């Protein structure tokens, strides 16, 4: 079960997996995610379903190695198996024909916004994608995005590709050119989603963001994933993951994401040490 059919790095530290999961492939809609465990003592982590094939029975996930679990996941290769995989979870993205839809994404968020951009296009929108990254090497899924949307614009922090600056600068450019988005979907690191929401709030453009709260079960049982939206507590895994960006308390969510910083660092260090030992042992074995 949950066999890895394909695995390749698509950017430094970012790996794309094709995983056998016929039931999930059949049901998933844009915006939904899976919970997975890499091994039998592992954490459960949420990852968005970037793509799927109901006919061939697989799903595609794109993973950025951040801490222990995602780094471990990214060591897996074709033929390896995931310990556990459940989904599709979360509410599907609400898609309609708004007119002009701008999908803004940063980092692996681009993988998460791909299915939404595609669904938006299929619903008849004019879709513009703005992809932001620290530098040119960290841009992912640009070609896939270009295939489904009307236009792709890039920004990099260091100017190594596209516009030198932030996604918010590109959005401003667009508006200066006279494009008025009817809907914005922003997916990426929290500071990015917060900045976009701030910018669009002033302009009164509806903005949807996908919140990456820390989760445990992903089924609405524990409340680990809670966030404050419009002054009310929501459970991101069952009430979301997408919410009105103008209503989200980003500061609180940002602090909640750092809740286990110390433990995560410890766990990641243990893992790296194990990996080092493994590599050294392999080298030693080769020398013999």
């Amino acid at each position, binding site marked *: 079960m949950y066999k890895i059919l394909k695995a390749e790095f698509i950017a430094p530290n970012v790996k794309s997996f094709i995983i056998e999961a016929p039931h999930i492939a059949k049901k998933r809609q844009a915006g939904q995610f899976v919970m997975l465990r890499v091994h039998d003592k592992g954490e459960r982590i949420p990852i968005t379903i970037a793509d799927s094939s109901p006919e061939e029975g697989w799903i595609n996930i794109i993973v950025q190695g951040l801490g222990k679990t995602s780094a471990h996941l990214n060591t897996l290769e074709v033929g390896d198996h995931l310990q556990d995989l459940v989904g599709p979870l979360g509410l599907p993205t609400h898609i309609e024909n708004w007119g002009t839809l701008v999908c803004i994404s940063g980092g692996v968020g681009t993988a998460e916004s791909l299915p939404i951009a595609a669904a938006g296009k299929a619903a008849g929108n004019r879709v513009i994608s703005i992809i932001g990254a620290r530098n040119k090497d960290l841009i992912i899924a640009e070609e896939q995005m270009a295939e489904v949307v009307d236009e792709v614009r890039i920004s990099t922090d260091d100017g190594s590709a596209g516009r030198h600056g932030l996604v918010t600068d590109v959005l401003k450019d667009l508006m200066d050119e006279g494009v008025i988005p009817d809907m914005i979907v922003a997916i990426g690191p929290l500071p990015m989603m917060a900045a976009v929401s701030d910018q669009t709030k002033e302009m009164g453009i509806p903005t949807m963001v996908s919140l990456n709260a820390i989760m445990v079960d992903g*089924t609405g049982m524990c*409340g680990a994933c809670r966030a404050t939206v419009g002054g009310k507590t929501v459970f991101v895994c069952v009430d979301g993951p997408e919410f009105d960006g103008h209503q989200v308390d980003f500061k609180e969510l940002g602090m*909640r994401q750092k809740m286990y910083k110390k*433990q*995560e660092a410890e766990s990641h260090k243990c893992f790296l040490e194990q990996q080092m030992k493994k590599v050294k042992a392999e080298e030693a074995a080769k020398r013999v």
Partner: protein
Amino acid sequence: MKREKPQSFNTIPIKERLTIPRQEMPEQDALLRSTNFLEVNLGLTPEQAVVEAQRCIECKNPTCMDGCPVDIKIPDFIQLICKKDFLGAAEKIKEDNSLPAVCGRVCPQETQCEEVCVVGKRFKPVAIGHLERFVADYAMAHGNDSSKSIQKPEPSGQKVAIVGSGPAGLAAASDLIKEGHEVTVFEALHEFGGVLVYGIPEFRLPKAILREEVANLENMGVKFIKNFIVGRTMTIQELMADEGYDAVFLGLGAGLPRFMNIPGENLNGVYSANEFLTRSNLMRGYEFPEWDTPLYRAKHAIIVGGGNTAMDAVRTAKRLGADEATIIYRRSEIEMPARNEEIHHAKEEGVVFMNLVNPIEFIGDEQGNVVAATCLKMELGEPDESGRRRPIPMEGSEFTMDVDMVVIAVGNGSNPLIAQTTPEIKTNKWGNIVADEDGLTSMEGVYAGGDIVSGGATVILAMGAGRKSAAAINKYLKVKVGSVA
């Protein structure tokens, strides 16, 4: 219902039986156990079990059975213990209860079977729960898996889906497989057992026991599928129409933990009991970093609530190394819904009880970590709808205490997923599934029972509901076959 009085194997005169003291359950030393997750209760010895069984006066009208929601033939199995036929006793219990090793440990016996035991009127009641646990453990240790003794039934050719592997689902599966149906249990999580694996801690209910019970059901032919969330991975309609299930039982349990809606509840270090216990039990956070899931190890933890869940959380916090682990409960100890044994054990382990206190705000530092709780003292007024005296805040009694972890254990709402994805199934205003006496929901062939129907209750009540639905499903399937043929 008239039943035959069981054969007696007790030669001690009745009067003398009443002079035998109730046998004490051996337990791990309190100081030692508050630092480990090993089981607290160690189980009666065979000698103790026989002596305890001899305390039963073999009532003509055994009221103990009325106190047991699944009508275990208590006097019968007790006589088999007197005869030292422990395996026979286990078989006798299993006629009515497929999870005796679990119930013997976690049933609130003092308010069920033991509360109405006749001996208990003047002396301490017969320790029915401890005896049940003893024979179940004995049978397990002696490789007595009931799947071997039970004859394989004629296949009925019909398929039943059980959604949720908590006690309700497991009890229903056990009864349905015996009727020859093809039974599949679907579970959303990666382990089977519901609250028994994610909620109730290892020190009260070792997970190995549950795994063995699940393995027994597997041997009897029940199929278990994990990581499958009905409503999302597949809907109920799809299970019935596309996968050919003739009937479905929903044992979804309670869901959505309740919070108190007070300021500061989303600070780091403020957990729901479900999250805290799931991180500890299901994800084994207490073995971090050997296991990957992190968990706070607090210096001063407060746990808000007075039920079993609160006791489990506070005792877990203590075991994780808290210098002080405190229960904050807004009524007094008499009103606490937790089992006496849990309260008693918690006290022995050094848990502090602050009764008649209610938090009104949690205070955080710059990084959003909880550092203090502001509380009010309460006094008890007139009884409310629940019959318990209503707590009333005392004016000017506000005080603040330093804390670095808070666990909110004030109950659960219901899991909204099935209601969201299957509008045919009616729910009430609390989100609980509406079902009749037999567990039948508003959708044909779909039954429900356990916490999802009753709201948070007990293991044995959930099992009882699972059994009732199983019986109704059997009837339904017989009629269904009849109408097809």
